[in-house]
């Protein structure tokens, strides 16, 4: 059996190399060749002598013809944001497959890992499914669980899954490959959550609503591609790349209030359910440990971080006056 791997990132390279070594790789379909990562992948494929077909959304017929010429049994979409046109889905009749990193129909959407890490999931599921006209709804061919380490970031988990992908596809092939009987997804239920690409609101910290663990997980989910979980201080946006919930009294302080600045505890901030150490903060001036950021910019305990998107009162209320804003801090 020969497969075409459709992708746009070098994260698919371990799978491509493995299939190539097994002589089960028909070709690589590459989308978005303008990015550094996909160009790097194209170069690697060229070095291995792997045929690469550029995916042009305007020319699906070129892809169909290429599949026919390559006599590929299936096309496996892997780390791909390209949506196959319905005509192509129909024409390939079950040969168009996708690897989705969730237990479908839970976490349908463009970024299931973001939402699973953000929710603090300890495990996930790789799902190989047929591509249907509606995204992530096709019948399931094969599934495998994977673990999520408490310190995994979005990218570290992506890389782990990238390394795991050859084994996953290898096990599916051993189990029969395309001969495996597709199973319809279970019925979508109201508690099944969507996994859209994260927007400004979902990557922002809301000190009033999110607890220590919520923020700890959000920082991991936003690290590094999204630059960190956004919050603000004095109208400036900061990005939290790493945080740690710690045992420390919060003395009933309002969420977002700085409780402690100093060695060895670090920069500690009250949340509504405990205290969080801000370990790594990114801002335009550089990447700082929380403590070093606090010392460099002379933060004072008792000052408060604000949520993001910024809600701080003086910005919107027409009560903007620098003197009393200063006094309020």
């Amino acid at each position, binding site marked *: 059996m020969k497969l075409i791997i459709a992708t746009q990132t070098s994260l698919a390279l371990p799978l491509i190399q493995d299939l190539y070594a097994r002589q089960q790789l028909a070709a690589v379909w590459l989308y978005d060749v303008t990015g550094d990562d996909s160009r790097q992948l194209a170069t690697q494929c060229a070095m291995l002598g792997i045929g690469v077909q550029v995916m042009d959304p305007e020319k699906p017929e070129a892809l169909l013809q290429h599949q026919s010429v390559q006599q590929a049994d299936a096309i496996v979409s892997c780390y791909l944001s390209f949506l196959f046109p319905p005509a192509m889905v129909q024409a390939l009749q079950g040969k168009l497959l996708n690897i989705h990193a969730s237990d479908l129909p839970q976490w349908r959407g463009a970024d299931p890992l973001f939402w699973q890490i953000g929710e603090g999931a300890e495990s996930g599921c790789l799902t190989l499914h047929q591509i249907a006209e509606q995204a992530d709804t096709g019948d399931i061919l094969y599934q495998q669980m994977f673990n999520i380490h408490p310190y995994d970031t979005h990218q570290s988990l992506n890389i782990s899954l990238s390394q795991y992908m050859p084994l996953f596809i290898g096990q599916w092939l051993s189990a029969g490959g395309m001969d495996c009987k597709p199973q319809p997804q279970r019925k979508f239920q109201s508690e099944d959550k969507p996994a859209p690409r994260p927007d400004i609101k979902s990557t922002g910290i809301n000190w009033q609503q999110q607890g220590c663990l919520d923020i700890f997980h959000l920082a991991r989910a936003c690290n590094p591609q999204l630059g960190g979980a956004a919050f603000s201080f004095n109208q400036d946006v900061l990005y939290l790349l790493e945080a740690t919930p710690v045992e420390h009294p919060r*003395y009933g302080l309002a969420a977002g209030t700085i409780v402690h600045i100093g060695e060895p505890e670090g920069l500690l901030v009250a949340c509504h359910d405990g205290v969080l150490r801000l370990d790594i903060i990114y801002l335009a001036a550089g990447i700082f440990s929380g403590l070093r950021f606090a010392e460099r910019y002379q933060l*004072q*305990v*008792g000052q408060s971080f604000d949520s993001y998107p910024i809600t701080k*009162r003086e910005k919107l209320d*027409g009560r903007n*006056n620098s003197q009393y804003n200063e*006094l309020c801090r």
Partner: protein
Amino acid sequence: MDTALRQRNVQATLLSEDHNSEQTFSFHPSLLASLNQQLRTSLTSVSSESEKNWPERISNVLLNSVSHVVSNSSDINLFQQCFQELAGFYCSLDIPAPLRQRQFINNNGLVMSPDYAIRTVLDSARVGTFWQALSSILPQYAERECHLVYPACGPFAPLLLPVLHYLREQQLLPENLQVTLIDIHPAAIQSLAALVESLQLQEMVKVLHQDACDYQAENGSVDILLVEAMQHGLSREGHLNICQHFAPLLAEDALLLPEKISIRAVLTQADDEFPAKPREAGERNTQRVDIGPVLELSRESLRQLDLVRLNDGSELIRCQQVQVPADLNTTIEHILLLTTEMQVYQDLSVTEYASGITHPLPDLSVCIGFEPHNPQPGDLLIKPGDSILFYYRKQGLPGFLPVYVEPA
């Protein structure tokens, strides 16, 4: 009187559960040196003179400063000069940056870093008024024993040590005066111990490293309690908690300094109170609506504080209730201000705006006669005619908590 108070040497008693004073930091020596140099540069007090001159320099600047203040001929430059010299002395101690920059909140309030706390000396109205008061008060104890305690005094004990030094030079310092300085911050203790030694005040000054609210002594053993541990609106620091802790320790005729702190509730429009163009000296906001006292903290009121214990173990103090005038003009958005006046001793006061601690404190969570455009958790919407009861929150970041009162 506690015999321990007669001990001749400066003590730096360390909290058993806090080893920060003895902590060695694993920073490279050159990084620590660089951080200390950065502090010197930021304080613009780099000295080319040798360290052995510090006792003389500190002595001179303190004598000069206090004598000018006592004779009512001080100016702002005097305090700037005083700060420069004291800051230079502080830098010369080479206290490791991680220690002197450490700041935190504990159960009784905010503990600022000594690097920040040293700037208190620059608050001329506050410091000058206390100097005047103490230089007048202390000679009155010439004929009797006196135990003065100054909790949360910071790295310089700036309201007291200069006066002690000045009075001694004037031969006006009571022989039986015993002073206890208390601070929770180990870097402040290092600085205090060095300053006391530099001023050769070891015989009468004892330095204790502990939370002021953990200080134990015989009831009635404190003759003067000097405490100034607050930010504007009696907020953030542990002033009231400390006063409350010391109340039973005060002698029958003890002095509490400041004698009275008055907090009042005032309604005003933000632009009237804080105009874009700063007001002339002495010019006041005439558009304020004073709605009454919130708390008056004095020796007498300390005995009558109405303590409310909550289920979670935290404590509040029930303060005064005020009423918003029924005829308040709601075409403008009023904000609530908490104003502070501090009567230090008799007619010596720190008036509103004179010092950082007497600036009015706006409470933006209280919206009077309008609804905020961006409601936030904890907003208190108040209408004309409504009553507000103030509680004082003791834990964490102390401060006033206004609560709407249902009509009877």
